[in-house]
């Protein structure tokens, strides 16, 4: 946690110094657009590009070096690539990220369970987070995801992975809040808490993204409807005991939910965005984007000999950073928002204040516990909010 906080100060300076371009802390690698689900909130499966190969990824990771703190491998459905774990391990060996996140729809049980077991064994120093998508309860999930039986198959995969008990693996649930399910989120949260007991529960608003080809699709809930969800999630955070690191994570998430809602209401960059500086995304074809919302290429890694730093320090990259800095775009993208919060002093003051006050005024049943002691299993849904 100290490494990203130390780098956050550098990003803060760099945002105001156009020619200072520190390497990113947080990179998302979308490894394929291919997907075996047909979600109402995503059209990415309709896209086709020539995906980067494992040897190409190795060259990219060599160029990036060890600056990464957080690496995410997304898709499409990332586990659909037979070489996904090899790609992740290549990143681990070369870039040494502390956190590796892989979102999944949970349909490919064998690939996920065996792949994560291998990853856990061969990347022992990384915290690995596997987030299962869940947008509704039972058949409602199947309907939103466009796959009959998805809920049951995902649940089986989830249970098996959770039961494996890999020491460095966090198994979480991720829900997309769309106009289709916005009124169902409180019930879904309760269902997740009761039936899944995940290590973490995160939600993200369905927004119109170029990456997912959802521009012009009516998927985003209204600000008023989303406010009700935020109120529910925040109330749950405030009512749930947490201490130490989990409480800090909760403080960040509470801040994020408020930022997401304010961004929707005020239609401006409420939180100064550090996409293209602290975070970025590599598309399956090697394009480097500031973020998946804009999906504007800073440059293509194949066209630059996989020289990430050449793309990162290009004139085009500077021009895109300038556009973001001027506030020409705004969005509630969670992945970039967390990096931005860490780089934004006023956000960190609020997060820090909430964290400290939770240490001082947390519920009695945790008051005797060590601040770093993980919550008991029943309360491990502390991260469920």
């Amino acid at each position: 946690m100290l490494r990203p906080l130390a780098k956050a100060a550098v990003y803060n300076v760099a945002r105001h110094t156009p020619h200072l371009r520190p390497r990113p802390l947080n990179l998302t690698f979308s490894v394929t657009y291919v997907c075996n689900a047909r979600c109402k909130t995503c059209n990415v499966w309709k896209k086709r590009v020539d995906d980067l190969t494992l040897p190409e990824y190795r060259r990219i990771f060599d160029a990036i070096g060890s600056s990464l703190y957080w690496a995410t491998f997304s898709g499409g459905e990332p586990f659909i690539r037979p070489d996904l774990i090899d790609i992740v391990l290549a990143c681990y060996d070369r870039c040494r990220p502390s956190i590796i996140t892989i979102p999944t729809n949970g349909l490919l049980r064998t690939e996920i369970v065996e792949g994560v077991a291998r990853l856990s064994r061969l990347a022992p120093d990384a915290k690995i987070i596997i987030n299962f998508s869940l947008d509704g309860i039972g058949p409602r999930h199947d309907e939103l995801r466009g796959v009959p039986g998805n809920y049951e198959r995902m649940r089986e995969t989830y249970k098996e992975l959770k039961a494996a008990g890999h020491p460095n693996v966090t198994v979480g649930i991720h829900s997309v809040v769309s106009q289709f399910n916005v009124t169902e989120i409180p019930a879904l949260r309760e269902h997740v808490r009761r039936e899944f007991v995940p290590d973490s529960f995160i939600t993200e608003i369905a927004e119109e993204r170029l990456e997912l080809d959802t521009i012009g699709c009516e998927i985003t809930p209204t600000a008023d409807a989303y406010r009700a969800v935020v109120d529910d999630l925040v109330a749950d955070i405030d009512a749930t005991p947490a201490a130490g690191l989990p409480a800090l994570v909760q403080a960040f998430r509470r801040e994020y939910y408020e930022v997401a809602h304010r961004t929707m209401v005020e239609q401006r960059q409420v939180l100064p965005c550090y996409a293209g500086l602290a975070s970025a995304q590599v598309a399956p074809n090697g394009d480097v984007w500031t973020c998946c919302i804009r999906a504007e290429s800073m440059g293509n890694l194949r066209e630059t000999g996989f020289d990430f730093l050449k793309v990162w320090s290009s004139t085009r990259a500077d021009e895109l950073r300038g556009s973001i800095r001027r506030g020409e775009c705004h969005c509630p993208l969670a992945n970039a928002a967390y990096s931005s919060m860490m780089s934004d002093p006023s956000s960190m003051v609020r997060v820090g204040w909430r964290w400290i006050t939770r240490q001082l005024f947390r519920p009695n049943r945790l008051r005797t516990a060590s601040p770093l002691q993980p919550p008991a299993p029943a309360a491990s849904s502390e991260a469920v909010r």
Partner: protein
Amino acid sequence: MTDPEQLPWRVERRLVDLGMPAHLEVCPQPSGNLPNVRCVLPKPATGPLSLVLRVHSRAGIPLAQAFIDLKPGDRSFETPLALMSMEGYRHLSQRARQDVERRVWSRRAFATGSVT
């Protein structure tokens, strides 16, 4: 005959100082292609100028862009637009691509201009 569509145009300070107008004119094109955008300058360009023009959604997401090179003496420009992130749709028919383009273009809200 209806008036041509006007797209609000926000430009950075250097372009404001050059007297850029506050709106662009949307010029429909035949056969379902994306429209061009046209700008009439209040006074001729005094020197060479390269700028990037982006069309954004209400949420500020850039949907389409164009790169423009003005020469000294230019009094206007008209440029076609390229939609962002269409590289994944090369396998689609032209008609299917145009369907995607129309859907994306339907979200246009404003344009921005900045010097490159």
